[in-house]
């Protein structure tokens, strides 16, 4: 796939010289970003993923007003919706109705719709900020390793190997499992969210680090870096003004692909009971509560589908973004 030419009509294909007919117009240069955007615009699947991602972000950001209009507070009990003899929701399909869009939970009758919407906020917040942490660590170490080479590169390379050989999930579970109730001026789930962001980000940086290192290795040998060096630029200047801007595209692409991984990571930790503490709603936590009520498909299905749709949308968009910036990587 190459950048689309602005040639209108089929006549151009028959008579190549007809391209020159428009030569009176000023020829516009296209930046890499513009070319990528043009490619992305033609990729329907990626755009679909992107639209879902935007919708999800909107839902997460406006979760409170959405819940206020369409649902009930996520922590509110609705015992009147529960059949007290079986502790299961009254009515068909887990109590789905105009008032309770996705039904209610068994036993306490909390509104599932509200809990899914509120869970989107936690999921996306952790997914985004954890990715930010890993991008920060990965980019810094990757650029340093790739740019300076030698023993620095060896050291950071080994560090990445060690991280990749770690049973990360076990480590993350162990760390998340011993988070104290109060530290750094935070407490309760505020602290847990902050710690999860740090833990998840800290364990997923090597993938970004490797890519950044590889890209920096090739950028280092380019002419414009030589030019900057010969003009007497210092390392800091070359790193931040010459190398880093050229890394933005791959970083953006792989950050987009890392977000769904991190969302899955958070869901797994909450599912295992070492993530966010109940009663704060999270998708992983809802699934782990649903284990005991496997006969209620709606209870299992909605949080699972929420995770699936979110992760799929980010993956589709990220894949499209990668193809747009680097068609060869397809």
């Amino acid at each position, binding site marked *: 796939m190459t950048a689309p030419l602005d040639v209108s009509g089929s006549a151009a294909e028959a008579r190549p010289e007809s391209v020159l007919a428009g030569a009176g117009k000023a020829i516009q240069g296209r930046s890499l970003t513009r070319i990528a955007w043009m490619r992305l615009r033609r990729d329907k699947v990626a755009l679909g993923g992107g639209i879902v991602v935007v919708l999800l972000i909107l839902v997460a950001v406006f979760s409170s007003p959405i819940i206020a209009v369409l649902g009930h507070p996520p922590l509110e009990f609705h015992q009147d919706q529960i059949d007290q003899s079986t502790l299961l929701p009254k009515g068909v399909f887990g109590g789905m109705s105009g008032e309770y869009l996705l039904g209610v939970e068994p036993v306490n009758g909390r509104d599932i719709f509200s809990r899914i919407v509120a869970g989107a906020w936690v999921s996306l917040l952790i997914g985004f900020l954890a990715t930010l942490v890993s991008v920060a660590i990965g980019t810094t170490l990757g650029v340093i390793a790739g740019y300076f080479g030698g023993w620095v590169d060896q050291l950071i390379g080994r560090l990445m*190997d060690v991280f990749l050989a770690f049973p990360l*999930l076990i480590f993350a579970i*162990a760390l998340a499992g011993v988070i104290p109730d109060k530290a750094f001026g935070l407490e309760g789930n505020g602290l847990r969210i902050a710690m999860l962001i740090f833990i998840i980000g800290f364990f997923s940086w090597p993938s970004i680090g490797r890519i950044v290192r590889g890209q920096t290795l090739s950028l280092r040998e380019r002419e414009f870096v030589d030019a900057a060096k010969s003009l007497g630029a210092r390392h800091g200047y070359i790193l931040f003004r010459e190398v880093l801007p050229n890394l933005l595209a791959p970083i953006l692409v792989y950050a987009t692909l890392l977000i*769904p991984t991190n969302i899955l990571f958070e869901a797994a930790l909450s599912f*295992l009971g070492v993530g966010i503490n109940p009663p704060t709603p999270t998708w992983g936590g809802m699934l782990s509560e649903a284990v005991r009520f496997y*006969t209620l498909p709606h209870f*299992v299905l909605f949080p699972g589908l929420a995770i699936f749709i979110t*992760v799929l949308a980010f*993956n589709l968009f990220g894949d499209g973004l990668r193809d747009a910036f680097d068609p060869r990587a*397809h």
Partner: protein
Amino acid sequence: MVTYIIRRLIGAIAMLIVISMVTFGIFYVVPQWAGATPEALASRYVGRAATPETVHLVAERLGFYDPVVVQYGRFLKGIFVGAEYDYGAGVEQCPAPCFGYSFISGQPVWPDLVDRMPVTFSLALGAALIWVVAGVSVGVISALRRGSLFDRISMGTALAGVSLPIFFTGMISLVVFSYGLGWTPPGGAWTDFTVNPAQWAYNLLLPWITLAFLFAAGYARLTRAGMLETMGEDYIRTARAKGLRENRVVVKHGLRAALTPILTLFGIDFGLLIGGAVLTETTYTLPGLGQYSILAIRNQDLPQVMGVTLVAAGFVVVASLIVDLLYAVVDPRVRLS
């Protein structure tokens, strides 16, 4: 070739040492954040009824007051030559490899780990077999028929597969196939291979397929991408021009070159999986290493956590060592370097 193997071996050993240091460091420091003092640790060995003096004495005997480095050295010594534990009441022998005693049950950790290994190993082995065969063949066919209906459907399914969390697919599969249709046994079913191989396979069938589906997706995508790249190379054209049959071109020339990144990924995945398929074992309540680790962590049972983490890391290192050696077989260029 010999230097290559020796270099990889030394690398693997160094990696294990680093991992043991980091693991010990983390699990030594983190419980202290959570408020564990030497006395608190020691009281877990002697029970709550003990007087502070007894607790202090035991903490001293077990060396909980020693600096980290000394404690780490003792820990390493226990693994290689065994250890003796002096509780005051009597001396307990812990033969090598000694990972210490559980805080909760008082049982030595290593035999527990050995007990649970067959479960995780069976789970990983069966799933790996299914996902490699399925993933690679789907990837090859998709690449050869790029843009076809098969390609689009299988790549769509693969993308869905990598986006599904295992604890969700696991639960759905249990609800549908075990509780709904009754085709497969419910979660928690486990029979040792030596007792009844047929029952062993039958019990593991559902976890195998669910786990394999998750991984096959990634392998199909990777194989397809690799095949598309290699099949465009000049030597493929040369092979065809020589008059080789298409099957031979695809398998011997195309797939073989595309296999290297797949092998790398497999080494990491398989090692991690043997180290503890935490989510799968939790979902299907299988008594393997993954379930063991989550229980150990919930109980804050430090010796158990240390043991299972090190064993898990050990599997990753050994698996990637084997992969490195397999490289030399698959890719002749490695042998020369």
